[in-house]
């Protein structure tokens, strides 16, 4: 048999084949479908009714509310009510209501395993690739088709290898690695193929840092972003009650074909900042030091998990934000916030003067009441800084790591977290 990539192996299994070729279109059976309150029930219910179908397997569907929260308008309350009623009518037990952002809650609740073929009704679904699952985002009509049939077509992707040798220095993170890669390769550098991350600096990442890496495959334009499972994956999963089956096969064969192999050296990486209005406008922080900011935002699936909160708190401990800066923290999940509260991380934010926001997508997705006003300049741990996404069209968003966002909140302008930390 021809050597296969990890992506090919998972798609072959899902489509009942021994092997698949890049470029062929196959129909695959879905192991799990994840939907949220925005693209989920309110969109799929009328389609399923028109088709006269219920969900194909209630045990393979997970529903997570995270977009229209807090539900503080008539519209959003109606959406949440419809969501809850549909989940009950379909008898779906994997319903995580107001628990946090779907990409973080899904693995936290033990739904992901290496080798699974998973679709999510959200573009940051490649996050699941951190666990060695082939997970990708689709729209609501396509999701309705999956819910009706349990199947989806997929053009077997080529694999693009991104290898990070060396080791990350202090105050550097997966966000810096991804902004660097997107800055180099562009927002369509992934060409809607499978991206696989490898190398010493990737293996050294924690599970949540790997999730940040896989998550931003969306901004790289890949269909999914895979990291082969290892002992880090296994111990994270077993701590959440999931005993993964033997995953030794869930890796690319040594001589599997790749269409591109990009090399980066983590040891030479500086903190990255992406200037408005594209994640591809990334450059070393030194090129943007001194830019004044009004808002520092620590939020989103890609930027406010427990590990992200700890990174930011390591800068803010015993510090105050600049008087001109509003620091907002929206922890990505309720569980992560609880742990952060118990260990004192949340207290650091409160003492620094931060506003704590709900465990939801919030202004990262342009939802809710905290959107950026006219001409506001924001530095943010989120994934996208498109014009107007987080608020007024005149607002500007710089993307950076939790270290850099926290350091900039203290300084009142963009600054290198390594300098604030005293070169620690």
């Amino acid at each position: 048999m021809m050597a296969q990539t990890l992506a090919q192996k998972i798609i072959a299994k899902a489509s009942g084949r021994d092997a698949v070729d890049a470029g062929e279109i196959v129909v695959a059976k879905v192991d799990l479908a994840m939907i949220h309150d925005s693209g989920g029930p309110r969109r799929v219910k009328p389609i399923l009714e028109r088709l006269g179908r219920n969900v194909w397997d209630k045990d393979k569907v997970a529903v997570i509310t995270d977009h229209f929260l807090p539900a503080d308008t008539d519209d959003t309350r109606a959406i949440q009510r419809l969501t809850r009623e549909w989940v009950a009518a379909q008898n779906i037990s994997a319903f995580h209501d107001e628990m946090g952002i779907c990409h973080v809650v899904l693995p936290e609740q033990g739904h992901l395993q290496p080798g699974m073929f998973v679709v999510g009704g959200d573009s940051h679904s490649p996050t699941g690739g951190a666990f060695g699952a082939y997970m990708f985002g689709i729209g609501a009509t396509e999701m309705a088709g999956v819910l009706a049939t349990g199947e989806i077509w997929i053009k077997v992707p080529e694999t693009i290898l991104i290898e990070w040798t060396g080791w990350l220095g202090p105050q550097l993170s997966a966000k810096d690695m991804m902004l660097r890669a997107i800055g180099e390769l562009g927002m369509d550098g992934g060409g809607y193929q499978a991206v696989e991350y490898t190398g010493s600096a990737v293996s050294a990442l924690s599970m949540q840092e790997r999730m940040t890496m896989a998550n931003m495959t969306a901004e790289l334009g890949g269909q999914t972003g895979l990291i082969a499972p290892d002992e880090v994956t296994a111990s994270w999963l077993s701590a959440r009650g999931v005993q993964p089956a033997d995953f030794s096969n869930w890796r690319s064969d040594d001589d599997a074909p790749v269409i591109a192999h990009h090399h980066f050296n983590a040891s030479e990486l500086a903190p990255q900042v992406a200037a408005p209005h594209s994640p591809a406008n990334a450059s070393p922080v030194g090129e943007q030091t001194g830019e004044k900011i009004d808002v520092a935002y620590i939020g989103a699936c890609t930027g406010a998990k427990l590990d992200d909160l700890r990174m930011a708190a390591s800068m803010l401990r015993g510090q105050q934000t600049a008087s001109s800066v509003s620091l907002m923290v929206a922890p990505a999940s309720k569980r992560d916030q609880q742990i952060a509260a118990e260990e004192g991380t949340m207290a650091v934010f409160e003492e620094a003067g931060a506003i704590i926001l709900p465990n939801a997508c919030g202004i990262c997705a342009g939802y809710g009441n905290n959107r950026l006003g006219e001409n506001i300049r924001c530095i943010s741990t989120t994934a996208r800084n498109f014009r107007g996404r987080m608020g007024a069209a005149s607002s500007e968003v710089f993307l950076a790591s939790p270290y850099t966002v926290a350091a900039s909140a203290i300084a009142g302008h963009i600054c290198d977290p390594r300098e604030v930390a005293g070169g620690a």
Partner: protein
Amino acid sequence: MGDPARVWKFGDNIDTDALAPGRYMSAPIDVLASHCLETVRPEFAAQVSRGDIIVAGANFGMGSSREQAVEALRHLGIAAVIAQSFAGIFYRNAVNLGLPVLECAETTSAKDGSAATMDAVSGKLELDDGVVLNCEPFPDFLMQIVNDGGLVPHLEKRFSGGASR
């Protein structure tokens, strides 16, 4: 060949937040569509006519999986989007909602405001200034879905025994 349509020209990396802004996502489609592309081109939604065509650069529709990005264009009557390339999820959403999306290696010669005549079958767009864009043909597998009018009618046909898949 249909009636002439106006060409609306856009650049690279038109994103889904521009097509379907988050702050209007809980609103009905007519409200959402009235804000379509306003951050890029404020007059677009008010001035676009049924049958008009968008010609754009690379990576059209990048960003979110929200299919309202496609739905807003359809609501405004856009007949087709021709771009150098499309973001993957947007492309799938367009097929599923029956919006013709055609890839064309060279779109820079098309001028904004041109009158155009589209032949969806051959993928040929003829402009009144003599410029012709020859688009890539649609893959057969996807053509079945588009010809059925999108994924929902396609599945209706399948469930009633009219198609194998």
